[in-house]
């Protein structure tokens, strides 16, 4: 195998594939990156057995300045191969496999020779039937990911809750995540063929996979293709294949948890409310009880935190409008902060039913496409 390529073009793809490679894997070959050179271009593969990423660099794309002198394949240690490529002096670089999988990397007068591994030892990625695929709008799907992963559990005690439940039916995609103290749900419309619209998919994708996927998605791409099998999902853009394992088990039915009644509704500017919560949580974080209290009255909304070990804080919160009954309740400010950040700068409504029932945050402009739910804290 021998090829020459523009270094920055190579580095970008390398960085994508690297996302799937963990240095702490128990399978030694997975610390490596597989490179295949054929007549059409280069294929880079990385995997940690939960996520696999395959990137293609086509020869026909001239900006890559890719020339393949000899086809072939090799596996190289990902961590230092990446470092080497990053630090090479010239704009182009040449990779050549020599005897016994030794591989030389040269750029101008710099030349490295590193030990490679026979690519035949690299495991095979799953073969996924590409017939049953559908397209997702990239920008919206990235939003879906960023808005839901915050509510996924980071604790392995309930593995299924470390994932995002994605349900596709009736030409829409519903994503839900919950760690049992809060829940985030987002719905986006999909454009589907009548045939696709007949089908239903219900999968749980590890949040970690989706976080990595979101990072590889370029804003320039318009759509991403999604394919689902029994235990895998493949996301495909033009030159990138992203495989993830699915979580096994039944995701709890969360729809029944979202309250449909409202006793009190307050409209806030999300960013302003976030500022107040952040201040109130400064002390609660120091104390043992990470709890802040919200008192909602028609003329005045007050947030307060009391941590006997450190001190207390009180602030009057600016709000746009309030309807319904007065209410006092306490909650974990961290959940509130995560939820508010997911809204960014927009007007939101916070809807309460009771001090011991979950409350929800929704965009002020009505609609059910985005809901954040938080359970309050019962104080004694």
């Amino acid at each position, binding site marked *: 195998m021998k090829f020459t390529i523009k270094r920055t073009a190579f580095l970008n793809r390398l960085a994508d594939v690297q996302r799937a490679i963990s240095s702490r894997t128990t399978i030694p070959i997975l610390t490596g990156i597989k490179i295949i050179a054929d007549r059409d271009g280069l294929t880079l593969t990385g995997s940690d057995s939960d996520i696999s990423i395959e990137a293609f660099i086509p020869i026909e794309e001239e900006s890559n300045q890719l020339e393949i002198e000899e086809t072939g394949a090799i596996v190289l240690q990902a961590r230092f191969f990446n470092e080497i490529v990053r630090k090479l002096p010239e704009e182009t670089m040449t990779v050549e496999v020599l005897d016994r999988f030794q591989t030389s990397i040269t750029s101008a007068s710099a030349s490295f020779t590193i030990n490679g591994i026979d690519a035949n030892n690299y495991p095979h990625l799953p073969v996924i039937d590409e017939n049953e695929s559908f397209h997702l709008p990239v920008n919206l799907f990235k939003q879906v990911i960023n808005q839901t992963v915050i509510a996924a559990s980071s604790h392995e005690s309930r593995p299924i809750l470390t994932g995002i439940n994605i349900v596709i039916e009736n030409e829409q995609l519903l994503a839900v995540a919950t760690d049992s103290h809060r829940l985030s749900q987002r719905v986006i419309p999909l454009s589907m063929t009548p045939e696709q619209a007949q089908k239903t998919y219900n999968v749980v994708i590890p949040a970690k996979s989706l976080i990595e996927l979101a990072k590889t998605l370029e804003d320039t791409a318009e759509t991403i293709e999604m394919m689902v099998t029994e235990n895998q999902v493949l996301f495909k853009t033009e030159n990138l294949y992203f495989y993830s394992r699915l979580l096994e088990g039944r995701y*709890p039915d969360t729809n029944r948890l979202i309250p449909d009644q409202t006793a009190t509704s307050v409209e806030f500017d999300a960013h302003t409310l976030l500022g107040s919560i952040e201040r109130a949580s400064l002390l609660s974080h120091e104390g043992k009880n990470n709890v802040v209290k919200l008192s909602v009255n028609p003329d005045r909304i007050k947030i307060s935190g009391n941590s006997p070990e450190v001190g207390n804080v009180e602030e009057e919160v600016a709000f746009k409008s309030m309807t319904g009954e007065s209410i006092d309740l306490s909650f974990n400010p961290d959940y509130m902060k995560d939820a508010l950040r997911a809204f960014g700068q927009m007007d939101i409504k916070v809807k309460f039913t009771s001090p011991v029932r979950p409350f929800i945050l929704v965009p002020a402009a009505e609609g059910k496409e985005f809901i954040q739910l938080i359970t309050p*804290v019962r104080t004694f």
Partner: protein
Amino acid sequence: MDIGLLHFDEPKRDTSRKIIHVDMDAFFASVEERENPNLKGKPVIIARHPKETGGKGVVATANYEARKYGVHSAMSAQRAFELCPHGQFIPGHFDLYRAISAQVREVFRRYTDMIEPLSLDEAYLDVTSNKMGLKSATLIAQRIQREIWEKVHLTSSAGVSYNKFIAKLASDFHKPAGLTVIPPEDALQFLRELPIEKFYGVGKKSLEKMHELNIFTGEDLYQRSELELIHHFGKMGYSLYRKVRGIDNAPVQPFRERKSIGKEDTYHQILRTEPEVIAELRKLTVKVQSSLSKNQKHGKTVVIKIRYADFETVTKRMTLPHYVRDKEELFFQAQNLWYEIGMIEKGVRLLGVTVTGLDPLTFENIVLPLWEAEASNKEIETEND
């Protein structure tokens, strides 16, 4: 003490409090003697006879007669038997000891509610202000000793001083049935004459180190600088520097926080199948949960204990990012721990479930009922079993 730019003032002594330490004399053994007068004058060792247990037991207490042979608590019963072969080995009757301990505590409570029990047989009392309005702590100690005798026919030793540290040393000074009073003006002299191993916290290892440093008595300790003691003994050095100067401000804590709540069960019929184990775990978690809510506590760490048929005992713990209180969650965690380490083929004779890292339940994170449907299904399944 000077550290870098900083100068620390010498610590000052607070002699305003009146503390009594009461220690029942050879408590368990004395109870047995009381119950069975034939034991009087014989060496009594509270432990199962090593011949019955294959040499496994540990001595809980020995009476003064047995102590003459070198028998002491925490010694293996086998060793005690070697030292004192004609000793009367008696398995402990702990329900009785607990009942008597409660009677003794009633005596204390006549004088103060500031009682800090250390175990069944000893407690600190703060009598600075007391229910009888008595000025003299010595008089209170005398009355308490007499009332304990009248009520339960057992002797106790008491120490009276201005802090817990000296009061405990004092109660140990004349035993049995002794009363030692160490007023502030005598305290420093008393401490300086004390052998170094009497200082609380000086165990076997630090004793060796003390001796290496030529520290044998309180006096030797007193001569060392604070920095030197901190250098050699860390936090204990800091505390010893103060103790030998008669400074110990630790308050009498009447409500010592419970650190854990657990339940365990021994099975006469060894459990040989997984469904049996799971069903027992469910029973235990229900009990633990109800005890947690009775005590208004919640904790983050779940521990299971398994004793196999061959007496091998293992424990495994799981610390969660949030408090567990809900019984489903508790059961789920206990079950997972069993799946992680349990070996059903070994046969199970004891199971225990404990929640530790307890905090008072001043707040509770409400949990979404995600698994409600699932849990009720499971209950139906186990009922069918």
